[in-house]
């Protein structure tokens, strides 16, 4: 061996040695976290780097580094050392290391120690998404986890987005994001909620590049926008992309929709002749909307929802002929099948992609043409070209009623000539209506018997109409929960009626209560509002930081007729009230009828909307007042004989 070679190998050894010792400690210690990042935080992301290289429209490499210091066991969920994969993803590298609070090396975790598991979405009986994840049990807090990963995939339809803030109770010290294009690829960038955050846009014509430093943790607050509605985010999409073996394109919604129609939907529209004939016979002589309703009911009668997601099948519906044969499918398959049947019936209809969910009305982002949505519904233009919406995965919803799962949000309508963004039906607070009428009789021993009738419409209908599917025992416990402020409530009988034509649900409940009124010192005290009390008040925040968001309005009217017990007369009646404010209105009144009965009338209208954070306390006070008035009592005295 020549001396030079010796020197080289010595150098090499030295390099290896320094590398090994470098592993022994890192500079990320608990001590050097800025105090401002500790406030409200269970974990601090010290460094997050995502570097994406676009080799071509169907080839990208995503390299990530994440260093997070976990402060306590609630912060363990921010370990976030995982990679999702499917047959189109090659995981090139995956490794994690643990360091203690002083930055001293504790252990290294290799790929084979990661757990490999099916990425269950909770509904699918099959999907080919898998996840490799680390679940590390720390022995002491704080500790720091360093996670390095790299994967390469041909699916470019979804490019990892940048969230410089990772969630509630976690802060970020430094985060960066870059996409480098090895060849020019036309793309679009969407930036959300970047204002008011310490974020720098360093993008060049050849690259996308963002950096953020020192973002403090946030704490959740009630009646606020969701985290994703407020979180800073950057997303990028290619005009021409690849999705699990299929090319795709679209820089406008029109093009994108056209691609979906041509490449994903058209081939699935293959209803067998026999079924076409069957449908034609079924709808013969009917008007367009009558026919559409019959087709929907036919689908509800003959199919069920089963979710299977394989390959591009996660986005491409199963063939109509298959659904016809098997009688099941997922949202795409059932919607496409219904559409094929509508075609056969001569009714135009459009496959529509939507973000479903009752808690947040999430729009398909109109400014960002890309794969979006998590559900599919069907739109049928009526005579005035107004869209009627149906959810083909439900066997029970009335025709034209989608409830709060997909209401009032922007969706992508896929027409043969191209895509179009439109908004689904909105249920006005006045439409989400409940009318409760009751007649009840109070007895001298404080007990009560009564008959309650509740009618609901709109989203309140949606909350209630599935009661018909429950067992008697479940119904009984529903009412006991619904009226949980009535101690010793007995449910004597329940009659339910679901009018699917007018979308009205009627409940008639025969109730009894042993101790409705309290006997205090010979007087009977009771609350006239027995059947629609608001008992919960929004939480108090000493320093409210988020806007007030009231999600879905409603309107309730109540009329209760009260028969007083023999031998008693009114000692005291609460005075009626009427409140009106930007959040809605509330009023109640009590009147004495000539026949000795009392009538209690109540009305509440809760509007929806977003209000500045300063309004939160006023809203809270409103609901506090409502709950107080709802609990107002009547005192009955014994009649002097």
């Amino acid at each position: 061996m020549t001396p030079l070679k010796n020197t080289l190998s010595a150098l090499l050894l030295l390099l290896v040695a320094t590398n090994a010792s470098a592993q022994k400690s890192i500079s990320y210690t608990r001590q050097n976290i800025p105090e401002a990042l500790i406030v409200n935080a269970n974990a601090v992301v010290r460094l997050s780097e995502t570097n994406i290289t676009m080799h071509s429209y169907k080839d990208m490499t995503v390299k990530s580094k994440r260093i997070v210091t976990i402060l306590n066991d609630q912060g363990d969920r921010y370990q976030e050392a995982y990679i999702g994969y499917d047959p189109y993803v090659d995981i090139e590298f995956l490794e994690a290391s643990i360091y203690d609070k002083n930055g001293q090396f504790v252990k290294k975790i290799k790929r084979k120690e990661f757990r490999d598991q099916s990425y269950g979405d909770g509904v699918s009986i099959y999907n080919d998404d898998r996840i490799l994840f680390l679940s590390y049990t720390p022995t002491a807090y704080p500790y720091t986890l360093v996670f390095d990963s790299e994967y390469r995939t041909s699916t470019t339809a979804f490019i990892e987005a940048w969230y410089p803030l990772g969630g509630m109770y976690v802060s970020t010290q430094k985060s960066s994001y870059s996409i480098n294009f090895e060849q020019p690829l036309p793309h679009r960038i969407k930036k959300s909620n970047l204002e008011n955050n310490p974020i720098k846009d360093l993008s060049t014509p050849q690259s996308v590049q963002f950096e953020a430093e020192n973002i403090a943790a946030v704490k959740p607050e009630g009646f606020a926008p969701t985290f994703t509605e407020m979180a800073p985010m950057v997303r990028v999409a290619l005009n021409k992309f690849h999705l699990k073996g299929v090319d795709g394109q679209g820089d406008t919604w029109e093009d994108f929709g056209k691609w979906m129609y041509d490449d994903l939907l058209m081939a699935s529209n293959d209803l067998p002749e026999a079924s076409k004939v069957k449908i034609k016979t079924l709808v013969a002589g009917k008007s367009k909307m009558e026919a559409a309703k019959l087709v929907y009911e036919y689908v509800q009668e003959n199919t069920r929802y089963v979710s299977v997601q394989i390959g591009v099948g996660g986005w491409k519906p199963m063939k109509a002929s298959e659904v016809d044969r098997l009688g099941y499918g997922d949202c795409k398959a059932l919607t496409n099948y219904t559409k094929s049947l509508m075609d056969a019936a001569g009714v135009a209809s459009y496959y529509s992609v939507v973000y479903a969910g009752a808690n947040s009305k999430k729009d398909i982002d109109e400014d960002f043409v890309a794969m979006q949505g998590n559900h599919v519904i069907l739109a049928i233009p009526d005579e005035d070209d107004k869209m009627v919406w149906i959810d083909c995965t439900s066997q029970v919803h009335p025709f034209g009623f989608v409830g709060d799962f997909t209401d009032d949000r922007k969706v992508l309508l896929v027409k043969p000539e191209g895509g179009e963004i439109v908004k689904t039906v909105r249920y006005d607070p006045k439409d989400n209506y409940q009318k409760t009428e009751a007649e009840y009789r109070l007895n001298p021993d404080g007990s009560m018997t009564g008959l309650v009738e509740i009618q609901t419409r709109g989203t309140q209908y949606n909350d209630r109409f599935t009661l018909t599917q429950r067992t008697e025992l479940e119904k009984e416990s529903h009412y006991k929960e619904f009226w949980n402020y009535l101690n010793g409530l007995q449910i004597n009988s329940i009659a339910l009626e679901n009018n699917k034509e007018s979308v009205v649900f009627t409940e008639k409940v025969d109730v009894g209560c042993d101790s409705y009124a309290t006997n205090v010192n010979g007087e009977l005290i009771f609350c006239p509002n027995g059947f629609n009390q608001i008992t919960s008040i929004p939480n108090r925040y000493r320093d409210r930081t988020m806007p007030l968001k009231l999600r879905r309005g409603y309107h309730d009217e109540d009329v209760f007729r009260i028969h007083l017990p023999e031998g008693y007369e009114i000692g005291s009646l609460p005075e009626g009230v009427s409140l009106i404010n930007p959040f809605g209105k509330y009023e109640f009144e009590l009147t004495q009828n000539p026949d000795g009965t009392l009538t209690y009338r109540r009305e509440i209208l809760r509007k929806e909307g977003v209000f500045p954070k300063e309004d939160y306390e006023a809203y809270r006070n409103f609901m506090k007042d409502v709950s107080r008035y709802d609990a107002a009592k009547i005192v009955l005295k014994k009649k002097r004989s």
Partner: protein
Amino acid sequence: MRFSLVIGAFCLAFSLAAQTEKIQFGVVTKEQLLEKQHPKDPEAEAAILYKYQKTYFEGSTLTNLIIKTEYFFRYKIYNKKGFDWGNHVIPLVRRSNNNGDYVKTLTGTTLTLENDTIYADLVGRDNVFNQAVNSYIRTETVTFPNLKEGAILDLSYTIINPYPVSLRDVVHQFPIPVDRSEADIFIPNYLVFKAYTKGFEDIHYNVYNKDINQIYEITATDIPALKEEEYINNIENYRASTVFELMQTRYPFPTKKLGYNWEEVTRTIYKSDYFGDELKKSRYFSKDLQKILANNYSDSLQLAEAIFEFVKEKMTWNGNASFATFQGLSDAYDANKGNSGEINMILTAMFREAGFEANPVLSSTRDYGIPVFPSMQGFNYVIASIFLNGQDILFDATEKYSLKNVLPLRAINWNGKLMRKNNTYKEINLFPEDLSVSRSLLKAEVDENGDIRGSIENEMSRQFMLLYLAVKKMDYQNDYAKSLEDFYNIELSELTDNHEDKTATNFRENYQFLSENQADIIDGKIYFSPTMFLKMNENPFKATKREYPIDFVFPKSEILEAEFSIPEDYKVTYLPKSLHLKFVDDLASYDYEIKQIDDKIFLKYELTTKRSVVAPTYYSLFKAFFEKIVNKQNDKIIIEKIKS
């Protein structure tokens, strides 16, 4: 594939060894398809009309032994809610090299009646989905085609288990009613199994020998749907099923006895290298133990607690319940973490080394259920014990805040087996016997607006303390005060507690509060409930009927002592009446005592439930008992301005 059926035309039909009438695959009558509801349970969304399984062994040596189980299921779907039963999930053991369980000869069909004709839609290859859930489990899901209300679904398949460890339980009870459940279990004479029955239903056994087999013929009919109830420990404890345990292997296998009774089970476990042998090792902790011993505790109990505190502090539970050591105690010790077996065996070993008569207690967690028969599978947990001053004292070091004889909830489950060095064992009750007490001292002032302000001191002992500290542990962002405020609807200030004090045996907290909106002011009179925001708002028992035992988890006493002052120019016009309730058989009691002394009102109430688990026969009495309590808690004091 779809057929219309004429009687007898079904070529796939095969007969099953049903004792009564023969049920043939694919053969149903129009009447059966027309049935609209279950005759005994009209609300059932679906039913299992028939379930059959035949289990037998193949192979003659230990290495090529396999178990085959042929299953047949006949479902009836009554309504759309029952469509979920149209996806039949078969869970399978997954092993590396693809030699785990597998399914063979799967045939299924959906039978429906349309226009007075019976149709059969066959389950095809594309209706079966194979999903690897994780490294140990995979599932095959059969999705029946063309489901309709009224449909009957027939399914038969064979599971082959190439590496038998145990016989799967024969399950007779499901969330829907089962009309008939039958099983034939063929056990070759070189294996000896014992069968146990779980649940409250009648299950009939006919056991006989034929050729080389012992055959268990099992029949159960009209098994009602298994329904969850509140206050239940683990519904699996009540599911009607037959459970088999391997007792012995015989010629041509090596003759080996595998357990007949708890004595032998515990001995087998104790003798195994992952248990008893591990317990003997002491070198790995001896330095640390010396340090503890150097403190020269005069009192043995103090020493025991010092060792307990040390292990709790040092070791972190990795969330796995197990009675076996996986990494060895020494490695677990060095890594500062381990499963329940490892942590509490380290504790036991240290106790022993320190001179205590210390023993491990084998047990099972609440989630795991109660073992129905003596078997190693009956256990998944270990607790440590010492015998001191004539008493057994239990310790569980997996939970940072646990105390002696105060075990985390998961460990409070029926009995444990305390295993001694000499291979004997004794049963030990894991349900706490001592009352856990939660006591609140409240001092409050009512003002003319009906607002009430004052201070509260809460003191919690034993299980209450453990529960509270578990909640508090999640409070890193000081949300605990906030959640108290939100829960009670009060304004809270000056919250202090003693939870930093590791030696405290009771958890104590104090705070000041302002409670608005709780009093009613009617005609100048103020009505307020002296139990205020601490009152029980609703009866925990709402259902009219009860099937299974009520699980109160631990004996407890909740006490409130309150003192109220009222505005100077006010007088008390009404005080609720005192109330004393005694529950039959001394299972519970409630005392509510209220009096006025000078211008102050004093309330003391105490609610005590003395048992951990109570038979369902007491249910309606408990419901009525709590109803009276809720009413009493809502009873109001009236005060009124003195007219001058």
